[in-house]
C-alpha cells in the first residue's frame, strides 16, 4: 500500500530536485544566487528573499541578491545579523528566527528583520565552513513553515553551498587561466624582441669590435712608429664611438619595440566581441564578489579594430575597475552610438561604483609610468599593457580614450571607436 505525500510537501521536494538540476549548470555566484532565491520564493510562496556571502579577509557580508526587500535595508540587515548568524552556522545548520538573534545589536537586528518581513535566516555552508546567509520572508498566506519545508530548505542550501563553491572555483580557474595566457603571450613577445635584439647586436657590433681588437693587438707589438700608433689609436677610438652610437640606437630600438603596435585591423561587430568578453570574464570577476554587467547588445555597427588588441584594452580597464572597487561592487560594460566633434563613434564604457580616482591623478592617468618617476617599468604588481599603452593602442586604431571619476562614487573609462 502506498502513502500519498501531501501536495504541499510534494511541491517542496520537487523544488529541491528543480534547484539541483539548475545549479549544476550555473557559472558564477550571482547566477547561483538568483536561481536559489527564485526557487526558495516559489517553494515557500514568499515575496522576500536575500542572500549575503562573506568576503575573505574582512569577513563582512556582501549583499549578492535580494527580492522584495529594499537594498539599503537589506545591507543594514546583513551587517546587523552577520556575526551572530555565522557563529550559529558553525554548529549543525538550522534555520534561525529573527527573534533568536543574540548579538550586541539584537534589538536592531530584530527590528530590521521585521521591517524586511523576514521570517527566518538560514546559513549557507560548505564543508561546515559558513559561506553565506539566506533570509526568507513570511509566506504570503501567513502560514507557518512546516518541518518538512524547513528540512527541504536546509537541503536546498546544502546544494547551493556546493554550487557557490564550484562557481567560485570555476571563476578563480578562469581568471588564473586568463592571466597565464596573457603572461605567456607577453613572454612570447619578449622572446621575439630578445631574438631581434641579439641578431641586431651581433650584426652591428662585429665590425667595430674587429677594428678595436685589431688596433689594440697592433699597438701591443714592438717597433711601431708614433705615426702608426696615432693612426691605430684613432681607429680604435672611432670603433668605440661607433659602438657607443650603436648602443644608444639599440636602447631606442628596444623602447620602440616594447611599444611596437603591429595592428591586425579588421571589420568587427564590437557588440559580439563585448558579449563574448562579458561571458568569459564574468565568472572570474564574480569570484571576487563583484558583478560584471553588460548592456548594448543591440548596438550593431561594425567598425575597423584589432580585436585582440581591443580585448587587451578591455582587460586593462576591467582589471582597474576590479582593483579599485570593493567586494559587492558593480562593474558595467556598455556600448552605445556616440557623436563627438561632428563625427560618429561607437562608445565602449567601463563604469564602476568603486573608490574613484583622486582628481589630481586624473590628468596623469594615461601617461607612461616612465614620465612619473623616470623609470621604464610598468605599474608594479600587474601584468597587462598599462593605461598608457592602452591609450596608444586605441589611438593607433583611430580612436580615443578618456576617464571621468568622482572620489567615493566610482569611475568611468570611455573608449571611442571611429565608425567611418
Amino acid at each position, binding site marked *: 500500500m502506498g502513502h500519498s505525500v501531501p*501536495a*504541499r510537501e510534494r*511541491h517542496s521536494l*520537487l*523544488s529541491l530536485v*528543480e*534547484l539541483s*538540476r*539548475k545549479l549544476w*549548470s550555473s557559472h558564477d555566484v550571482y547566477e547561483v544566487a*538568483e*536561481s536559489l*532565491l*527564485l*526557487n*526558495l*520564493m*516559489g*517553494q*515557500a*510562496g*514568499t*515575496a522576500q528573499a536575500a542572500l549575503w556571502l562573506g568576503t575573505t579577509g574582512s569577513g563582512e557580508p556582501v549583499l549578492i541578491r535580494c*527580492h*522584495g526587500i529594499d537594498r539599503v535595508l537589506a545591507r543594514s540587515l546583513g551587517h546587523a545579523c552577520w556575526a551572530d548568524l555565522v557563529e550559529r552556522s558553525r554548529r549543525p545548520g538550522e534555520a534561525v528566527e529573527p527573534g533568536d538573534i543574540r548579538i550586541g545589536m539584537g534589538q536592531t537586528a530584530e527590528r530590521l528583520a521585521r521591517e524586511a518581513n523576514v521570517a527566518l535566516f538560514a546559513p549557507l555552508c560548505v564543508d561546515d565552513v559558513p559561506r553565506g546567509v539566506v533570509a526568507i520572508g513570511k*509566506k*504570503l*498566506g501567513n*502560514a507557518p513553515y512546516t518541518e518538512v519545508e524547513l528540512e527541504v530548505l536546509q537541503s536546498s542550501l546544502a546544494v547551493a553551498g556546493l554550487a557557490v563553491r564550484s562557481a567560485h572555483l570555476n571563476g578563480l580557474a578562469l581568471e588564473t587561466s586568463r592571466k597565464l595566457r596573457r603572461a605567456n603571450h607577453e613572454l612570447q613577445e619578449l622572446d621575439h624582441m630578445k631574438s631581434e635584439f641579439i641578431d641586431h647586436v651581433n650584426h652591428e657590433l662585429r665590425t667595430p669590435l674587429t677594428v678595436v681588437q685589431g688596433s689594440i693587438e697592433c699597438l701591443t707589438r714592438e717597433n711601431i712608429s708614433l705615426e702608426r700608433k696615432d693612426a691605430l689609436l684613432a681607429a680604435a677610438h672611432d670603433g668605440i664611438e661607433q659602438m657607443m652610437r650603436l648602443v644608444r640606437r639599440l636602447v631606442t630600438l628596444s623602447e620602440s619595440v616594447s611599444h611596437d603596435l603591429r595592428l591586425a585591423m579588421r571589420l568587427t561587430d564590437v557588440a559580439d566581441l563585448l558579449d563574448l568578453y562579458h561571458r568569459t570574464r564574468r565568472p572570474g570577476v564574480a569570484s571576487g564578489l563583484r558583478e560584471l554587467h553588460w548592456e548594448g547588445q543591440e548596438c550593431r555597427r561594425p567598425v575597423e579594430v584589432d580585436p585582440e588588441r581591443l580585448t587587451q584594452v578591455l582587460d586593462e580597464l576591467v582589471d582597474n575597475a576590479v582593483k579599485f572597487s570593493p567586494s559587492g561592487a558593480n562593474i558595467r560594460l556598455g556600448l552605445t552610438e556616440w557623436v563627438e566633434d561632428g563625427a560618429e563613434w561607437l562608445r565602449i564604457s567601463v563604469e564602476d561604483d568603486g573608490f574613484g580616482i583622486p582628481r589630481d591623478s586624473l590628468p596623469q592617468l594615461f601617461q607612461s609610468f616612465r614620465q612619473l618617476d623616470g623609470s621604464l617599468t610598468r605599474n608594479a604588481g600587474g601584468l597587462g599593457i598599462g593605461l598608457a599603452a592602452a591609450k596608444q593602442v586605441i589611438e593607433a586604431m583611430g580612436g580615443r580614450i578618456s576617464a571621468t571619476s568622482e572620489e567615493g562614487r566610482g569611475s568611468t573609462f570611455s573608449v571611442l571607436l571611429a565608425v567611418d
Partner: protein
Amino acid sequence: MDTTTEIEVLDGGHRGRIAVLLAQGRLDAGTAPVLLGRCAEVQAQGEDLVLSLKGITFLGSSGVGAMLVLVEQFQEQAGKIRFAELSEAVRTVVDLLDLGPHLPVDATIDDAVAAMRS
C-alpha cells in the same frame, strides 16, 4: 543541459501602452531567466504588461518565484503587470501556495487590460 528552449515568449501585440506577452512551455529554474529577460525588455520600454500563462504546461517553484519577482520589479518602477488565462498547471500551484489573493490574476487578456485601465 540547456533547458532554456523549453519556453517560448511570444509577442501578443499592444493595447496602447500595455504590452501583451504569451508564455508557452515550461516555467521552471531553467526557463525562468528567459521569461524574466523578455519581461525586462517590456519594462525597459516603460510599458505595462499583461502576461498570458495559458500555454504554460508546467510551473516549478522557480517559475512561481519569477512571477513574484515580476510583480516586485514592475511595482518598483511604478509599472503594472497582470497575469491572465492561467493554465491548469499554473492554477494548481498558485492555489496550493495560497497565492491567489496576492497575485494580480485575470481570466482573460481583455479583463487584465480593463483592470489596468480602471
